[in-house]
């Protein structure tokens, strides 16, 4: 699946959203989650989206990932106009271009660690043997060599998140989506996980988006978009600015 050159972004950008709006429910129970979100993320960087609970962070993340469709606005991710794509194309886009790291890991408990890591390759049509061979390599990279045949429930939280990171990267996606990757972990383990994520983001062909309300990991961001009430009201563009803005956290 290749992007149409007509939708190409500037070379430093991984994605851009313009005027994105999304609401849930109807009538009196209607809630507007996004009220015109304009957002950009750069290749080779960790971009964090932060804000209070209910501000629309996860909704924006879901739209960028292609798991949710916006009601209005334009969403261009890696040259793909997601706002124009129908469900089957969005599904294929996610399979080929996105890696996910979830808050609760979302590892399948009834299969082994190596089988969990192989899933994205199998979704993309790889044979099981080939996928598991690659999965074994990635598990070694995240420091879990020798644990391939164990079930996820036998691993610690930090180890499970590292398995999730390996799963997110095995098919070499250019976009990594991380939803609260450290909220289920202690401080030390969270720092270790973020070190891995930051190293991943250094790839100039890759972009990492992290949604978090954990101030302990803000210093890992290269760029930070602050959200409130469905809009991005401030973007901090370097670690120093981020550190200064959140000095009290």
């Amino acid at each position, binding site marked *: 699946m290749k992007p149409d050159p007509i939708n190409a972004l500037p070379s430093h950008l991984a994605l851009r959203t313009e005027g994105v709006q999304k609401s849930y429910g109807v009538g009196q129970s209607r809630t507007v989650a996004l009220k015109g979100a304009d957002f950009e993320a750069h290749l080779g960087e960790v971009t964090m989206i932060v804000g209070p609970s209910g501000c629309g962070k996860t909704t924006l993340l879901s739209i960028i990932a292609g*798991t949710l469709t916006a009601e209005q606005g334009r969403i261009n991710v890696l040259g793909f106009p997601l706002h124009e794509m129908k469900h089957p194309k969005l*599904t*294929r886009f996610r399979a080929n271009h996105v890696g996910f790291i979830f808050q*609760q890991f*979302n590892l399948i408990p*009834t*299969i082994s660690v190596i089988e969990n890591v192989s899933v994205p390759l199998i*979704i993309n049509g790889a044979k099981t043997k080939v996928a598991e061979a690659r999965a074994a390599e990635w598990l070694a990279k995240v420091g879990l060599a020798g644990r391939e045949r164990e079930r996820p429930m036998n691993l610690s939280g930090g180890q499970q998140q590292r398995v999730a990171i390996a799963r997110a990267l095995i098919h070499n996606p250019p976009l990594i989506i991380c*939803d609260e990757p450290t909220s289920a972990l202690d401080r030390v383990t969270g720092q270790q996980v973020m070190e891995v994520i930051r190293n991943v983001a250094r790839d100039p062909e890759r972009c990492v988006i992290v949604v978090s309300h954990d101030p302990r990991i803000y210093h890992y961001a290269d760029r930070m978009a602050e959200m409130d009430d469905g809009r991005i009201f401030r973007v901090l563009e370097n670690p120093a600015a981020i550190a200064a803005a959140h000095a009290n956290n």
Partner: protein
Amino acid sequence: MLRLALRMLFGDRAKYAMLISGITFATFLMANSPALLCGLMSWTYSTIRAVRAPIWVADPKVEQVNDTKPLRDTDTNRVRTVDGVAWAVPLYQGLTQARLLNGSFQVMTLIGIDPDTFIGAPSKITEGNLQDLRLPNTVIIDDFGVERLSAVLGRKIGVGDVFEINDHEARIVGICSAPRSFTGGPYVFTTYDRATTDYTPPQRRLLSFVLAAPEPGQDPAVIARRISAETGLHAYTESDFSWSTIWWFVANTGIPINVGMLVVIGFLVGTVVSGQTFYSFVLENTRNLGALKAMGTSNLRICGMLLIQSMTVGFIGFGLGMGLAALNGYIAIKTGKLPSLMVWQIPAGVLAAVLFICSLAAFLGILRIARVDPASVFR
């Protein structure tokens, strides 16, 4: 993805065991009951299977082989004179009580066959000699009779042993294999004259059936119709009389209804247990399947995963259930206590029912998962 689906299924051992158990139990119930019914129905026409003749001629009111309305002795000759009939012989059938040497009684089905041709004699004599039936006061008893009488007398009986029927001596000159009788008692074969003269209390008419055969090249059904038309009696082919007997029991007893209820219960149990268990399996895996959706698995692939899971459970459960039913049938036949007959239509029908149950279970799961929003894994 299909291999992954099976790994997810087998990995949840408790759920997997429950799913298999539900289908196995349902299969067993759905297969065992009809096998019991078919076995029972096969017992109803066991006399036809024991005696074997192409055409059976009976009183016009007779609908099944266990019901005898005596014919006139001249009816045998009347059947012989019908064009196309190769031969016709008399047959006696009736229930009798045998008195054993220790004074106890045993109900038996007495068959009196033509002594000149021995038409109607058992096809498999395992001990003794059929020709010895021409000797005075002689009988051939089936192996079930040997078992029964041996149990009553406390010793193995065989050729040479003696008991009484209607105060007349009955000496065993042979043992045969015969199908089990619906009446529950053994078969005892003797000559027609002995059966109607010595072993049965005197009555005006004693001829039960006339057995006949068509001339070579003639259709038994055509000859049977001709016999009926010319004699006013009712002539059946062997197959027609067997089915007529079965349908009589279906229409006039509650056996099929009771067994049919067991089959329906088995089907409902299988549907409810398997459907509910599989649905709860899907519910427990909703988040995992939602994550797969988020990672780019299409709805069609997820449907395929659920279908392969339910069908795998279905086929394994079907195999185990049919195995249990076959084992149960084998034990029933070996012990001789219960009837069992597994015709091919039973496994075919049960398989169709199991596939329906599994498809329904998968469909319910698919409906649930199709509505899962991939973005829900972010919440």
